[in-house]
C-alpha cells in the first residue's frame, strides 16, 4: 500500500512538467533541485549532526566542472559526468579527512573557507572559468542523437530527486543511518558502541557533497549559464536555514523547508521587494528559540 503511494507521488511529480508552461517549468526545476540539495544537507546536518557551509559550493563545483570538462576540454558527456563526481568526492575527502578528526565546529569553519576560496578561484580563473561573467551559451550535448530539452529535461530532475531520496532513505533506515544519529546525539557513546566516528563522518560528508555535485551538474543545463554569484555564501546559508526551518533530521522537514523558503520570495516580493532574507533570518531565530524541531515538529504536535 505504502509503495503504491510512493509510486503515485512519483508519477504526479513526473507528469506535472508536461502541464506547465516554460516559465513554471523553470520554477519547478529549481524547486526540485533545492529539495534535492536540502535532502542531502539534511542527511549531513540533521541526521549526522555535521555543520558545513560547502554544500552549495559543491553544487557549484559540480556545475562548473561538467561545463569546463565538456566545453573547454571537449570530453564526451559520460566521461565529464564521471570525472565531475570524482572531482567533487576528491575535494570533499581532502577537506573531510583532517577536519573530522577535530571536534565541534571545525568542519563548519574549514568548509566556510573552502566555499569562499571557490568563489575567489571562479572570479580569477580567467578563460577556464570565464571570470566574473562565468560561462554561458552552451547546450547539453545530444545523447544518442537526442537533445533533451523542455519538459523531458524536467523529468531528468524528477529522476535525480527520486534517486537521491531513495538512496538517503535506504541509508537512513540501515545500520549506517542509526550510526549517524548515534554519533550526532553523543559521539562518545557512539564510539563505545563500536561506531567508527571519524570514518562515518568522512563517508557522510563525501557522499552528500558528491550528491550536491551531481545536482549541480544537472543544474548547469537548467539556465545554461554558470557564474560566481549563483554559488555565493548567501545560498550556503539558505540551505542551512531551509533544513532548520523545516525540521532538521527529518526528510519531510527538508522537503517542507526547501519548498517554503524557495517559494516564499515569490509571494513576498510584492510586499517586501528583495528583502525576503530579513524574514528568513527572523524565521530561523524563531525556529531555534521556539520550535527546534521545525515546522515538521509543529505538524507532529497538531496531528496527534
Amino acid at each position, binding site marked *: 500500500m505504502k509503495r503504491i503511494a510512493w509510486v503515485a507521488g512519483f508519477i504526479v511529480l513526473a507528469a506535472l512538467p508536461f502541464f506547465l508552461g516554460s516559465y513554471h517549468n523553470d520554477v519547478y526545476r529549481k524547486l526540485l533541485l533545492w529539495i534535492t540539495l536540502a535532502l542531502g544537507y539534511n542527511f549531513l546536518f540533521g541526521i549526522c*549532526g555535521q*555543520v558545513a557551509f560547502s554544500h552549495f559550493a559543491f553544487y557549484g563545483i559540480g556545475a562548473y566542472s561538467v561545463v569546463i570538462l565538456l566545453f573547454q576540454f571537449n570530453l564526451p558527456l559520460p566521461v565529464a559526468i564521471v570525472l565531475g563526481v570524482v572531482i567533487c568526492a576528491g575535494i570533499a575527502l581532502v*577537506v573531510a579527512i*583532517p*577536519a573530522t578528526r*577535530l571536534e*565541534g*565546529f*571545525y568542519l563548519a*569553519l*574549514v568548509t*566556510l*573557507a*573552502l566555499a*569562499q*576560496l571557490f568563489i*575567489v*578561484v571562479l*572570479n*580569477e580563473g580567467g578563460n577556464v572559468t570565464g571570470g566574473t561573467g562565468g560561462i554561458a551559451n552552451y547546450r547539453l550535448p545530444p545523447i544518442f542523437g537526442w537533445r533533451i530539452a523542455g519538459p523531458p529535461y524536467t523529468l531528468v530532475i524528477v529522476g535525480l530527486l527520486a534517486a537521491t531520496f531513495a538512496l538517503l532513505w535506504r541509508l537512513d533506515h540501515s545500520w549506517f543511518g542509526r550510526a549517524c544519529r548515534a554519533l550526532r546525539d553523543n559521539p562518545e557513546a557512539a564510539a563505545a558502541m563500536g561506531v567508527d566516528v571519524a570514518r562515518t563522518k568522512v563517508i557522510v560528508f563525501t557522499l552528500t557533497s558528491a550528491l550536491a555535485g551531481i545536482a549541480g551538474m544537472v543544474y548547469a543545463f537548467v539556465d545554461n549559464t554558470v557564474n560566481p554569484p549563483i554559488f555565493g*555564501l548567501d545560498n550556503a*546559508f539558505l540551505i*542551512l*536555514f531551509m533544513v*532548520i526551518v523545516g525540521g532538521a533530521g527529518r526528510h519531510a522537514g527538508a522537503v517542507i523547508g526547501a519548498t517554503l523558503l524557495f517559494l516564499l520570495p515569490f509571494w513576498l516580493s510584492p510586499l517586501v521587494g528583495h*528583502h525576503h*532574507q*530579513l524574514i*528568513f*533570518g*527572523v*524565521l*530561523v*531565530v524563531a525556529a*531555534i*528559540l521556539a520550535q*527546534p524541531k521545525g515546522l515538521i515538529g509543529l505538524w507532529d504536535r497538531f496531528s496527534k
Partner: protein
Amino acid sequence: MQDLLELAVGATASGCIYGLIALAYLLMIRPTGIINFAVGEWAMVASFGGFVFLTKYEWPYPLGMAVVVAFMMGVGWATERIAVRPLVEKGASLLAPILALLGVLVVTREVISVSFPPDPLPVPFPFGIGRLELFGIGASYQNVFIIVVTLTVFAGTWFFFEQTLWGKSFEAVSLNRRAAALMGINLPRVTAVSFAGGAGAAGLAGLLVSPNISAHYLMGVPLAIQGFTALVIGGVGRVEGALLGGLLLAFAEQLTARYAPIPSGYTQGVPLLFLMIFLLVRPTGLLRARA
C-alpha cells in the same frame, strides 16, 4: 627599504583591525564556547553608526565614537538576552546558539540594508587625511590612530584579565563553568558582559576601518572571516594571541599582494588558505593557553 617599512605600517594597521575582531570572538568564546559570526555585522553596524553620528549629525569625534561603542555594547547585551540566554537556560546544545546567531547575522545585515541606501557611505577621518613623517617613514594619521587605539584596547583587556577580580572570574568560567558557578560566580552576568565587550571591540574595529573602506552593508562577512582567521592563527588561549594572529595575517596578505607572482585577485584567497591550513594542521593556534 622605505617601501617595505611603509608597507609594514599599513600591514600593522590592518592587522590591528583583524586583531580587534579576533578579540571580539575571543571574549565570547572563552567563557561560553560560542563562536559568534555576527561580529562582522556588528563592525558593519558600528560603521553605519559612524556615518549617522559623525557624517550626518557632525558630532565631535570623541563623543560620536563613545556613543557608537556604547550603543554596540547595548546591541551585544541585547543579542545575548534574545538569542543566547533562552537557549542556554533550556540546556540546548552549544550548536543551537551558534546557529541562532547566524540567523541574527542575516537579520542585522538586512535591517541595515533596508534602512540605508545601497551605496557605500562616507565616514570621516578623526584627524583628516594627512600623513605623519617619523624617522623618514610616512604613515597616515588614520593608521597611527588605529594602531594606538588597538594597543590601548589590548592593554586594557590584558589588565582586566590579569589584574582585576572581574577578569579572574571570567578566566574561572572559561576553565570550568560548573566549578565557577559553585564558587558563586554569576554565570549569566559573565556571559552578558562578554557579549557586550565583544560587540564593543567589534564595533570599534568597524568604526576604525570605515573611513578607509566606507560603510557598506556587505562589509561584515569578509571582516568576520579575516578576524576569525586571526583568532585561529593566534589561538583562543591568550588575549595577545588575537593581536599576534591579526598582525601575522595582515603581513602575509600584504606581502603576497606586493611580492608574490600571482594575479592580484588571488590575494583575497590568502586569508582563506591560512584559515584552512591552520584549522587542519594546527587548530590550537600558535600560542598555548597559560596554565
